[in-house]
């Protein structure tokens, strides 16, 4: 495939080495005699955001960006980012996807229910949508050969047979780009990726392993109710509960009827998770937490 050129989208999260991985593919293409363009936005992505790199090779390449639905292959270093890149993948194109997950803190905001917004590792659904899925746990494979940091080389090894570049182009590029001390480890990881087959039973096994961790996304849902004894509250003179509340739902109300002129109030009744920090730290026993809304 891709005998007249091709478009590859590499995607991951800031810090995962997507830029280096795509530089390796680009240089391999150059060594194989192709015109190459490669474009990534590494703006704020450095701060844990998405890094995607568009790579195109051919006799003469114009746009450095791939059109939606026109990527001949997608390589995803992270599960969710693989899903994000799907709109770029050409019908029938292979998806090389790592089963590693990077869960950002923003996915853990449902404090009450405890459900994350991180998408489930639904490999079965992905297989039926995409068809050609080459999923593996590259981190696990790289760790097994002693170099977890070489996980991207595993994925490049999976990509390699899909591209019309000779072995010496891959090897030359890989060796020139990775730190000198890690050349052997990366070559080993690359070979391990290259040797992977993706028969149905392997994928089914991966799907089962993926499903086993999916409890992560589920929530339980539990609420609590706060009871404030205003007469015991010192209000602004204390403020301990206001400062410690992780949900930031307590505030001092000047119109209150406590021992001072003011007292603590609950701003949002339905947001209390019942952590009891206010109850435990109130020096005047003015707050009680009751389970259930």
């Amino acid at each position, binding site marked *: 495939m891709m005998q007249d050129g091709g478009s590859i989208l590499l995607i991951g*999260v*800031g810090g995962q080495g997507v*830029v*280096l991985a795509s*530089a390796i593919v*680009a*240089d391999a293409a150059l060594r194989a005699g192709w*015109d*190459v*363009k*490669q*474009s990534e*936005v*590494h*703006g*704020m992505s*450095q*701060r*844990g*955001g998405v890094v995607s790199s568009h790579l195109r090779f051919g006799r003469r*390449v*114009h*746009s*450095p*960006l*791939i*059109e*939606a*639905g026109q990527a001949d292959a997608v390589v995803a270093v992270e599960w969710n*980012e693989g899903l994000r890149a*799907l*709109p*770029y993948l050409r*019908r029938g194109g292979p998806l090389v996807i790592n089963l590693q997950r990077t*869960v*950002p*803190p*923003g996915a*853990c905001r449902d*404090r009450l229910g*405890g459900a994350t*917004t991180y*998408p489930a590792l639904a490999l079965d*659904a992905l297989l039926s*949508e*995409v068809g050609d899925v080459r999923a593996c746990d590259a981190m696990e494979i790289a760790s097994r050969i002693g170099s977890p940091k070489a996980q991207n080389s595993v994925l490049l090894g999976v990509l390699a047979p899909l591209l019309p570049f000779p072995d010496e182009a891959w090897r030359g590029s890989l060796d*020139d*780009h990775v730190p000198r001390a890690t050349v052997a480890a990366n070559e080993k990881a690359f070979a391990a990726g290259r040797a992977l087959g993706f028969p149905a039973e392997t994928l089914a096994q991966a799907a089962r392993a993926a499903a086993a961790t999916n*409890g*992560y996304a589920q929530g*339980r849902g*539990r609420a609590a109710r706060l009871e404030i004894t205003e007469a015991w509250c010192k209000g602004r003179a204390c403020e301990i509960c206001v*400062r*410690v509340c*992780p949900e*930031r739902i307590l505030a001092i109300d000047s119109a209150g009827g406590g021992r001072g002129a003011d007292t603590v109030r609950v701003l949002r009744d339905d947001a209390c*998770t019942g*952590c*009891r*920090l206010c109850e435990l730290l109130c020096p005047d026993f003015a707050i009680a937490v009751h389970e259930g809304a």
Partner: protein
Amino acid sequence: MNASKPSASPDPAALGSPAPSRPILLSGNEAIARGAREAGVRVAAGYPGTPSTEILESLVRMDPGRQVYVEWSTNEKVGLDVALGAAMGGARALCAMKHVGLNVAADTFMTAAYTGVRAGLVVVSADDPGIHSSQNEQDNRVFARFAGVPMLEPADSQEARDFTVEAFQLSERFDVPVLIRTTTRVSHARGVVAPGTIQVAPVLGFERAPAKFVMLPAHARPRHRALLQRLEAMEHEVELSPLNRIEWRERAVGVVTSGIAYHYVREVFPEASVLKLGWSHPLPRELVRELAAGVGRLLVVEELEPFLEEQVRALGLAVEGKTHFSRAGELAPESVRRGFERAGCLTATESASRSLGQTLTRPPVMCPGCPHVAPFLALRALGAVVAGDIGCYTLAATEPLTAMDSTVAMGSSIGMAIGLARSGGAPGPVVAAIGDSTFLHAGLPALADAAYNGTRMTVLILDNATTAMTGGQAHPAAGVTIRGDAASVVDLPELCRVLGASSVRVVDPYDMAATHLALEQAAAAPGVSVVITNRPCVEAPVKVRDHPFHVVAERCTACQACMNLGCPSITWSEGWHEGRRKVQIDIPTCTGCTVCAQVCPTEAMVPVPGWSRKR
């Protein structure tokens, strides 16, 4: 200002080699640096800013012999002054900045068009259509017309190299600074470049010419007329330049385009005839007329402003552009295709894309161990109205810190805080939050203003000893130059005192109680109180990795207090406590800053046992 990461050079040796034997893969920024070297640039200056930062950085990398003087300037205006002075002294000079940087340098830029140069002066403006990492997406092509200087718009890395060489020649031929305008997709895209040979241009030497360089009214008036004459000469020259060309194909549609948009047009509409503008100001009117006369319909495809379109229309030609192609955001092959479809030039294609339901959004966050976290937690607790500024700490405006109320331009925090304090409408203490590099860039005049006029407010200087957002560039308080040489260090506390700050507190932002106390005291203090936090950035220039922490699961009561830090190393674990998620620390990314351990009410966060630095 704003983010970028020095890209892995494909072949550092080839990049700096005097005459590489084979084509090399270069980013547009690397190619500009390469072109400048080949043109014999002697002095280069600028201020870091995405997507321009790598221009000066790669110039340093490809010049180990130090034939070029390269500096990070305090701000873009200083940088352009340095470059103009060098050009006046007879040395070829380059000044590189991001689009909004040219606003800062505009004062010099506008009048440098009057003075002209002696040796070549090239100004690079790297624009950011789509606002990948900026505060706006202004189209700096407008500046070329405004100032009356020639503008070159490379469309790829090869052109970035070629046009830079050409720009120095044009600058000297027409005695005027030349603007090279790139965009993110030119600056940060890599392409194959056939480089030329690195030259050492002779220094022409200084020649006293006050009528040319001293812009008294009596000198400036004739220089303005001289500029208009030079523009007229350029209008003739631009018609003949090989940087512009008509590519005749089918005659139904002719497209005028420049920069990256040219490649999108070629990609999605390969049959169209195209006037490809490389030297786009002044506009080669005759070439435009020639294309218009040879095609059925004339379209302009350009990013952002209808810069070319309006000039083409002013020629009395029937032209279409922004009715089909958006004036906001960056173009991409899809949007250019849709534009041609809307115009009826292409038949609509079915979208082939698929998806698998909702994916997770992944907004940028502060790094694990970022020293900016605790100060914003304190500001939030104090109910402060926070005028923010440009840097990583702008992320304090987002969840979960949500402790910043404004971000406008470099240095704006302090001036806006003065106004907020004077408005009488602020419900809490008014605090300006500004980074060290940004403070030196444009904060100093504002702090002097606040002190001079006796405004009661607090300035929080988040000193991490680097320009972190752009990848860790040095500045005058960082102690090193762009080449890594030791440099004098601005003493920030002393500087604030001499500018008139009523009090200066220096605090360790990893000490939450001390940070809170310092800000609380500063907010209650009279006059302009300054608080300076003094922890270095954990990512650049040195990666800080101290003893990492982990969570003792039995002690975690899942209260979520640590989750309010927004630390990417802390996420929910599979464990639960009373219906809430327990947390875990990702040990490989934990920097050991200890802030989570300070907020944890049950001492569940403890140093990983048995850890040693050498691993």
